[in-house]
């Protein structure tokens, strides 16, 4: 499509919603003036105008699909015949599924831990150094890049050439310079998962960093100064004051990254597509959605497994929300 027709499409799409709100409210005001002032009626109509579009979208794209996916997980590949727990027993006996569960657990342990740890360390370092904000900016930058883009960046880093050739991937060039054999990093089972996780850590450390930086500023200076006057070392201050103070923040960052990691898809899909034992749930699910015309039953089971992973976090969020509302 030409740039012109694309622009028209975009404009029409956005204007549709602007006009919806404008016209519906205008009509309501118009009839309010004409008819008797029935405030209760007017208010409820306006509530509906304000809420309806968002609610319909929420219902069609989130609420209904969640329950439909759960229902589909008990049905066959076209979603017509009830098959009971068949899809679940298939999953438990499927080697790819087991591999995915193990890998996802690995991702869940390694990525949030290291991202949070690096973010915390860098936030602390950068806070006390005059060029800290530039450093933060640079480390935060990967947050803006797509997972696929990051995939290309790192695939280039991991590039492999035969032992005799010049290496063009930085990692292998370093390995060769140190006297090791070059490796095709992404094809070494078990270890290749770590190389894929490195990409996610590279991206998510920036998130942890900026949130920690903001939180660090909320630590009262007096507390830190008092500790310094008493002769506490910087390391001691870090462990005994900063970490306890940031407990809540650490937990929040941990959950954000955990949710992201549970859904990790792009990196695996772009880099290995689950080969060499790097399969994860989200990629396997995508695979089953389209493999051989699609199997909505198996796809749904896999999606449901991801949901089960986030349910503790979901419950915790709701609990905290309730606590906040009470205050």
């Amino acid at each position: 499509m030409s740039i012109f027709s694309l622009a028209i499409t975009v404009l029409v799409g956005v204007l549709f919603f602007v006009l919806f709100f404008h016209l519906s409210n205008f009509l309501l005001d118009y009839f309010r003036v004409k008819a008797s002032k029935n405030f209760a009626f007017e208010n409820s109509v306006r509530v509906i105008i304000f809420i309806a579009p968002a609610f319909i979208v929420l219902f069609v794209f989130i609420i209904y699909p969640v329950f439909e996916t759960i229902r589909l997980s008990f049905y066959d590949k076209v979603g017509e015949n009830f098959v009971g727990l068949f899809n679940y027993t298939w999953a438990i006996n499927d080697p790819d599924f087991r591999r995915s569960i193990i890998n996802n657990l690995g991702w869940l342990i390694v990525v949030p831990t290291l991202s949070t740890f690096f973010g915390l360390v860098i936030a602390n370092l950068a806070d006390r150094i005059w060029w800290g904000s530039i450093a933060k900016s640079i480390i935060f930058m990967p947050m803006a890049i797509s997972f696929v883009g990051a995939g290309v960046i790192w695939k280039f880093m991991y590039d492999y050439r035969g032992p005799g050739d010049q290496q063009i991937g930085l990692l292998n060039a370093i390995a060769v310079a140190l006297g090791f054999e070059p490796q095709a990093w992404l094809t070494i089972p078990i270890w290749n998962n770590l190389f894929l996780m490195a990409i996610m850590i590279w991206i998510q450390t920036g998130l942890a960093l900026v949130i920690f930086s903001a939180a660090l500023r909320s630590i009262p200076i007096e507390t830190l100064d008092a500790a310094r006057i008493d002769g506490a070392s910087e390391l001691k201050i870090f462990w005994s004051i900063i970490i306890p103070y940031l407990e809540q923040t650490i937990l929040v960052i941990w959950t954000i990254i955990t949710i992201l990691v549970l859904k990790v898809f792009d990196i695996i899909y772009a880099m290995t597509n689950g080969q060499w034992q790097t399969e994860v749930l989200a990629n396997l699910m995508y695979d089953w959605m389209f493999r051989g015309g699609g199997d909505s039953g198996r796809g749904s089971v896999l999606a449901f497994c991801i949901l089960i992973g986030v349910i503790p976090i979901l419950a915790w969020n709701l609990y905290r929300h309730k606590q906040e509302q009470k205050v």
Partner: protein
Amino acid sequence: MKKLTFTSVFSQLLLLLFVIAWIVPTFGLFISSLRDKDVLAISGWWTSFTTTEVNEIYRTKGKEDQIKEGDYYFIKSNLFDENQGKEIYRFGITSKNIDEYEVGETALFKDETEITVFENGDYVWKSREEFKKKKGKRIFVSAKSPPSFTFDNYKEVLLKEGLGQAFLNTFAVALPATLIPLIICSYFAYALTWMKFYGRDLLLATIIASLVVPLQMCLIPVLTIYNDFGALFGVSAKSYPGIWMAHTGFGLASTTFLLWNFLKTLPSEMIEAARVDGATHYDTFIKIVVPLSIPSFASIFILQFLWVWNDLLVGLVFLDKHPSEIILTAKLKELLGSRGENWEILTTGAFVSMTVPLFIFFSLQRYFIRGLVAGSVKG
């Protein structure tokens, strides 16, 4: 100026190490996208800043270019197609001995013709008899190649590989997929904050629960709805409006939540005063709330825009892979599969896909960070 203590030096070095580790991958990609594709395939990007030594093969011109001077026939030309600033220091005429001769020396072929190669690639090929072959001979050269960068790769990917179109497509997806949720969620968040209605708390709890629902839970049913809808009205199931609404749906919870978080910090006296003065909720929203919310709109716009721009999964499921619909990330993934060894295309393509996010990042970093922090510390 602080004293240079061991701790401060150590922390500076440690931070520097982190910075280097984080910037080097992206920097390498950027440098590689500016290198000549032949050089890129055989040498690491870190060698591109210094003069490197390369071994290359060229072919001389054939009989058509010969001229007769006196008793001899000559072919005079330059080995390089264009001046790349390379300096030849040795050359050879057989693959067994590729650096047999010093530059400026004369080499003797088996057919008793002679060739002299000069530093800048000029050569003089001399023969007693007329040259008969159409094809020239192979010349092996060892040359020093100075650092050189080019925009050729960008021309190639944008025009020939179809990344230019994909770039436009991504805009056509991302702009409405950011503006539509912003519009409908701002009304929604206003209603959740300032309007009283039955079921408000339940709705709010639903939003908070939806925040963490994985996208994968929604894909299959939504795709089924789209397919049925497409079949019913005889339109394609994969279309721009379709993906806008999908992104709106998947971004709705977070957009609403962030806006709600912001709106509840506005002083309620102000809103109530406006209501007492007889302003409708619509007037209050447009005239008071929207102007006050511009900074938070900016943050949310950036977050959602980057999310949509960088998304791959939704684009794969709800758009065709046809050139008129394919988005950048999907295109890049396609190139990874089909042109996996053509690093000049991959590095350049990746960098093209990163231009808009990086531009936003560097120009609007403040809003970006504010949005992220607001979404996390409170959520």
